[in-house]
């Protein structure tokens, strides 16, 4: 387990950079944290570090949005938000199974605790805690 403290957005960007350079065999980043913790903001920084030019907007309503990338073996940046789900769904029931099975997808999943059957060997958990108006703690495990 690793912990990082960020005092501002520039430091959050550094954490995003750090995380992407030490992914190893992980392809699913599961983000958790309260409303307003900055899950989507963190995903925006991950996209920025990967050179994604498109603006990342919240996928809350449509569940997922996919973008083209070229990073290590990854070809797609798949941003998922399970916020609107009733707790505990199976991947297949929300149309995610194919996205998870395809190894060229890098998945960023907000509110991932609402999914039952994520392949845990591929998952990196990122918990964001609110410390103050601009400071956050990132717990990575």
């Amino acid at each position: 387990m690793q912990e990082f403290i960020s005092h501002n957005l520039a430091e959050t960007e550094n954490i995003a950079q750090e995380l992407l350079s030490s992914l190893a065999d992980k392809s699913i980043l599961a983000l958790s944290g309260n409303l307003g913790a900055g899950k989507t903001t963190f995903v925006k920084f991950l996209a920025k570090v990967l050179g994604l030019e498109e603006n990342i907007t919240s996928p809350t309503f449509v569940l997922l949005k996919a973008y083209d990338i070229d990073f290590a073996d990854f070809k797609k940046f798949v941003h998922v938000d399970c916020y609107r789900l009733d707790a505990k769904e199976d991947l297949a029931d929300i149309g995610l199974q194919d996205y998870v099975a395809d190894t060229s997808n890098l998945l960023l999943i907000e509110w991932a605790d609402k999914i039952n059957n994520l392949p845990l060997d591929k998952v990196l958990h990122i918990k964001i805690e609110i410390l103050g108006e601009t400071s956050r703690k990132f717990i990575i495990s």
Partner: protein
Amino acid sequence: MRVLAIESSCDETALAVISGSGNAWFLEKNAVFSQIAIHQKFGGIVPEVAARKHAETIIPLLTETLGENKLADIDYLAVTAGPGLITSLLLGVTAAKSLAYASQKPLLPVNHMEGHIYSNWLSNDELKNNDKNYFPSLALVVSGGHTELVLMKGHGDYQLLGTTLDDAVGEAFDKVAKILKLGYPGGPIVSKLALDGDENFYDLPRPMLNSGDYNFSFSGLKTAVLYTLEKEKNITQEAVKNMCASFQKVAVEILVKKTIKAACEYKVKSVLLAGGVAANQKLKTGLQSVCDKNNLPFFFPELKYTGDNAAMIAAAAYYKLQNHLEQTLVGKDIFNLGVKSNWQIFNK
């Protein structure tokens, strides 16, 4: 021309038929089966439940709407191909493809957001009869998934002027409702409580108001609501009402100011409101007032067409077909149609 449209992009299964020629068309059938009551008890949507419900509903709804002789007098089929929930969209698209192929009728995929814009043609006879006088028009498209300012130069001719950089405005309403523990869907509840609140009680930030472009940001506003409430020692019913009113005031103010600024800069001849948030009374009166001041005609959809429905999809398809704007799918090509859950139609 007679067009049958199918819509299943989220939690409503809907069918509609439009008949006519030129400007003389009418909505012949319009049926909506809403699942909101089913999802309400979960406090959100359950994609698998939604998809199953679409599957159960779509054929009986078709029989009920068109009778046993389902497709005999239909000339074209139209279907919402996106954007929306993949699992929900799949049901409508699969049904439309099967019906089109089996009955050998041409099929036209329609964008859900473009459909919302056409809800204005269903609701305003003046616009329907004389739409040439109202182009170019500025459309503010606001819903749970979208916040967009679109310059509509003519049928099917769009230019995106601005969009949200993070959360959609409808999503901000939903999340503020969640923070205040008010239930789902949040928009109508927040607006209702706002009626009894003091809209000047909390001073919330107005993100991007003076950004100089037509983009929006509502994520920070949601977070500001959260922080402001955390400073309160105990959150009374009074505080909840005041917060609903203060939040709604700011959200509406941002939308109205950016809309009228764009309307003036692009010298449009009318302003259109579209999408689920078009049901918001405060937004309608706010836009009406600035449009009146600027002598701009303002159109908005009737309440029954603000939510998801197939009538708006049929209307969008009707104008595309009338104006030969798009190729329909026929024969085996019908099977090439896939679901486009992130389909963007308004391009820069």
